[in-house]
């Protein structure tokens, strides 16, 4: 037999052996292609081939080697796949069983509202004043009332029942005193004062579903040379749309606060307002008070009301949270029932 015939025979024998073999693929590779393998042995016969035939025989030899190598590789891959498949089957579990628990803490719902307000106003270039020095929760009567244009016998003091510590020191009833404390320190050569002041406030109230002796306010104020009531309207519209949604509208109604003149109550639409909507179909809810800062207030803080104008507003995170999430009892915010706190776990809204 010629070498070519031997090679061809080896090829077909090898194909058969590989295809039918259940045995160790590595052993098969050694016996076929190894240094002492069958192909190597046959190719030793190359030296007896005529020089002019060597090229052709060599090609056949390479073809045999390639075919065997390929087949072996395929076989090996198939075997590995089968092994992997067997492993996967054996490792299959019930993926509907509960996952391991990872406790994730939530910011308090009131904190979330305050954070939203804070983010909004930071974006508009406001400062946040909430430190113990410029925004103390225990205040003087002077800053809480008198500087806010509420002298001792002012009728509007009836609107606010106050926890006094001494006749001159009290738990602040509003975050408004932060206005005065900020104004005193502001350097107008660096631009207008734009600030918000979130924090706790206190009123001498009996706690029930709608009253709490402790609640939160976010005071806001802008003081500059050309600050208008239209700016106030635009500012309030933007924060209300951030909190309640882009399609909500606001309206302003006359009101009275001693520290602003003009003063307004602001309502936000409970429903989304579309251009074709009839006015009577919009449901309005009262959400905050605002106004142009009273000249007396500016003057008491050393600001010339003829040069500067200012607006101020007071936002109520407790009320917003009640409206936004349908919370029907303000006391829930301060009981810290874990079942309540963990409901407000949506991030990135």
């Amino acid at each position, binding site marked *: 037999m010629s070498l070519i015939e031997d090679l061809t025979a080896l090829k077909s024998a090898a194909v058969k052996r590989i295809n039918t073999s259940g045995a160790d693929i590595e052993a098969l590779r050694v016996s076929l292609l190894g240094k002492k393998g069958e192909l190597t042995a046959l190719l030793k016969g190359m030296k007896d081939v005529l020089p002019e035939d060597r090229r052709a025989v060599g090609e056949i030899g390479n073809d045999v080697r390639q075919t065997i190598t390929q087949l072996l590789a395929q076989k090996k891959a198939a075997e590995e796949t089968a092994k992997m498949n067997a492993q996967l089957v054996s490792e299959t579990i019930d993926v509907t069983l509960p996952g*391991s*628990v990872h*406790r*994730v*803490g*939530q910011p*308090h719902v009131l*904190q979330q509202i305050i954070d939203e307000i804070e983010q909004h106003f*930071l*974006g508009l*270039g*406001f*400062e*946040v004043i*909430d430190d*113990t020095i410029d925004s103390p*929760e*225990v205040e003087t009567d002077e800053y809480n009332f008198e500087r806010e244009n509420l002298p001792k*016998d002012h009728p*509007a003091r*009836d609107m606010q029942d106050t*926890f*006094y*510590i*001494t006749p001159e020191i009290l*738990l602040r009833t509003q975050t408004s005193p932060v206005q005065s404390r900020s104004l005193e320190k502001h350097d107008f050569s660096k*631009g207008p004062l*734009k600030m918000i002041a979130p924090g*706790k406030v*206190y009123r001498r109230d*009996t706690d029930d579903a709608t009253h709490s*002796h*402790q609640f939160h306010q976010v005071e806001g104020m*802008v003081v500059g*040379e*050309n*600050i*208008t*009531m*239209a*700016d106030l*309207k635009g500012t309030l*519209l*933007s924060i209300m749309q951030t909190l309640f949604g882009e399609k909500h509208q606001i309206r*302003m109604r*006359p*009101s*009275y606060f001693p520290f602003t*003149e*003009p003063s*307004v109550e602001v309502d936000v639409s409970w429903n989304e307002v579309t251009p074709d909507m009839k006015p009577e179909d919009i449901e309005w809810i009262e959400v905050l008070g605002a106004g142009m800062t009273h*000249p007396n207030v500016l003057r008491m803080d050393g600001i010339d009301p003829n040069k500067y*104008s200012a607006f101020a507003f007071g936002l109520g995170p407790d009320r917003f949270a009640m409206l936004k999430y349908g919370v029907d009892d303000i006391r829930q915010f*301060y009981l*810290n*029932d*874990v*079942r309540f*706190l*963990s409901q407000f776990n949506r991030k990135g809204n």
Partner: protein
Amino acid sequence: MKTSLKWINDYLNNSINLDADAVADLAEKIERTSVEIADSTTLAQQQDGLVVAKVMSVTSHPDSDHMVIAQVDIGESKLTQVVTGAPNIAEGQFVILAKVGAHIINHETGELIELKPAELRGKVSNGMLVALQEIGFDSKISPKDFEAGIYVFGENENVQPGDDALTVLGMDEPVLDTDLTPNRADMLSMIGTAYELGAMLNQAVTLPDFDLVEYESPAKNQVSLFIDDDDLVSKYAVRVINHVTVEDSPLWLQKRLWNAGMRPINNIVDITNYMMLMYGQPLHAFDLDKLHDNEIHVRRAEVDEKLVTLDGQKRDLRPGEDIVIATTDGPLMLAGVMGGLESEVDESTQNIVIESAVFNPSLIRSTARRHNIHSEASARFERGVNWDATYVALDHAASLVDELAKGQVARERIVAANIERKEVSLTITATRVNQILGTTLTLKEIAGFFDQLNFQYTLDSEKIEVILPARRADMSIEADVVEEIARLYGYDNLPVTLPYGPTTPGKLTRQQRQIRASRKILESLGLNQAISYVLTTPEKSQQFAENVTAKVVTLNYPMSSDRTTARQNLLAGLLEDVAYNVNHFVHNIALYEQGRVFVANEDNELPTEIEHIAGVLTGDDVTSSWQNQKAARAVDFYDIKGIVSAYLDQIGTTNIKYVATNRHVNMHPGQTADIYVGDVYIGFAGQIHPKLTQSQKMAPVFGFELNLFTIMNEAKSDVQYDKISRFPQVSRDAALLVNENIENAKIESVIRQSAGNKLVDVTLFDVYTGDNLPSGKRSLAYTLTYQDNDDTLVEAEVNADFENVITALVNELDVQVR
């Protein structure tokens, strides 16, 4: 204030449309331009079928001794038979019949019911004769005369059988209840409200008219006035009226009063109330014959004075503070607040003195507050009355006493104080108005608003000089005028803009960022944020306080004994939260709170406020409810310590030390550590003392409380890149048998000090205490990891370093290597 639009129409030329839809529109317009409307209603509400009936005959009921059978004429061809138990029924009376089919409101349930024919002890009753209280009158406004029976029209009222009783009684008049802000004193009167609505509707106001006839005898012969202190009143005048007949007021006057929410009493009192409602000027009538002498003094109360006010209360007057009207015998009334019982006008009164005044608002306010009397009069005096109406209201009242009580008005008002009001005029420019409002109004448009408001002004090409009327006591400065312009222009019409000008960066301070980061870190460690009450009991305010000798901040007049003192620690509040949750079947709790604590300083100083952060952990650490290897286990000290350590690391503090302590009386003495950054104390962590938790059936609760200010002081913000070594690590384990009282912290410290510069980590991997150890000993096992940044470590070098550590441990801590 309850405002009848029909009454207002007297001054607005009947320009207000009284149809229900028009009234609803007007109410909306008032809310958008002026004040809130608390209620828009009529006394009738949805009632109907009520007619005037003339009682033609009254016969007794054969089967009842308290009911009678009446035949009444309601303008129909046949009489109507009704059975009634009214004790005051009599032939010839004009009364109110609720016909069969009438709708009336059940005054107990508030439901609207339809009247059906009834048979009362065998006799048919076609309807029901009613009392005012049965058709929607509050008992506070229905006249006392008819408290116990049906309503009977006065003889001179000229009502006819069949007249619609709702109309006759004025119950169909639309009434808007305005919810007045404290500044709008002007709208505490019908005329003031008419000016306001006139401005809105662009309608001129016609003031009421009256004729006053004076008799010859001068008033000053009958009384003399003395103002003992000029601070008390700006204006004070009286009129004397003789020979009055005190009786019920005519129906037209009663209607005005009850539609305004006031009860008709008698003609004299009603006239003073009517004038108060009309002009906003409170008046008071004294019975002249009940005065001890003819001297009337306006003065402050003296020592030991007492007064019985009209509500029957005996009041101790505050000497030197309360203002009183008095004779030489003593006080007659609390001036401007409430009359006295002794000089009250009653049916036998013949001669009266009517007073009209402008009292010092703040003195009235403090008197009213002190005695807790918030009367119609004090409400008006406190807020400021119209100085131009003092004498008009007085004279109008006198004229009505003549007309309705046949009184003879004595000649001349007696005026004891008459300070002229200083007229305020302001210069208004369009530039300024537009600068404040952001509008583009012209001077002419602004003048148009002043026309609507009926303000006097002069206009030239650059400015308006506007005169503020006396009726607007709330107005004194430019901003007040700007508000008037804004609300009449309409807030809806204001442009919507954002402030422009130099841009300012919106950024947080480092302290603010650290506080926010502190919250985020604790949340990422699994704690929910709690917000508890700041006010608590004195005990709880100091339960876990840093310094229990620090003074607390205490309310001078608390609402309840639970909320008297500002907290000096957050843990006590969190512990209350835990108790609440446990009581509500929530047992696995992880909470933190960030907030302030309060330390009192001197009495006249603000307290020091300190930011704290605290947390609690209790129940089970439930990783999985069903996987054996991760099953629930109770949380322990090391869980809370792990949270604190992770937090302190993330916030940027280093060199943290935990020192066992038993100094916190409300913490477990064997499971609490004081925490230091270097040598600086920042707080503590440990188990809440079981004496606090066991009694409330709580599982062990672990907590920490840290002073955020100290932490923020100690936290380092600089982060420097540490090169990551690419050379292999080598580790050595050391299992040590040590005396029980030697703490891990001590051992680790000895290891680090003696380890040389190649040690990169020490990890405790086993703690063992058990039977097969000698008593008083425990076993601790550590892995020491060595690595060099620049070279591969040499085995021998590591061995030598490790030997040094072991030697140090043996020498310093007497350990045995196992």
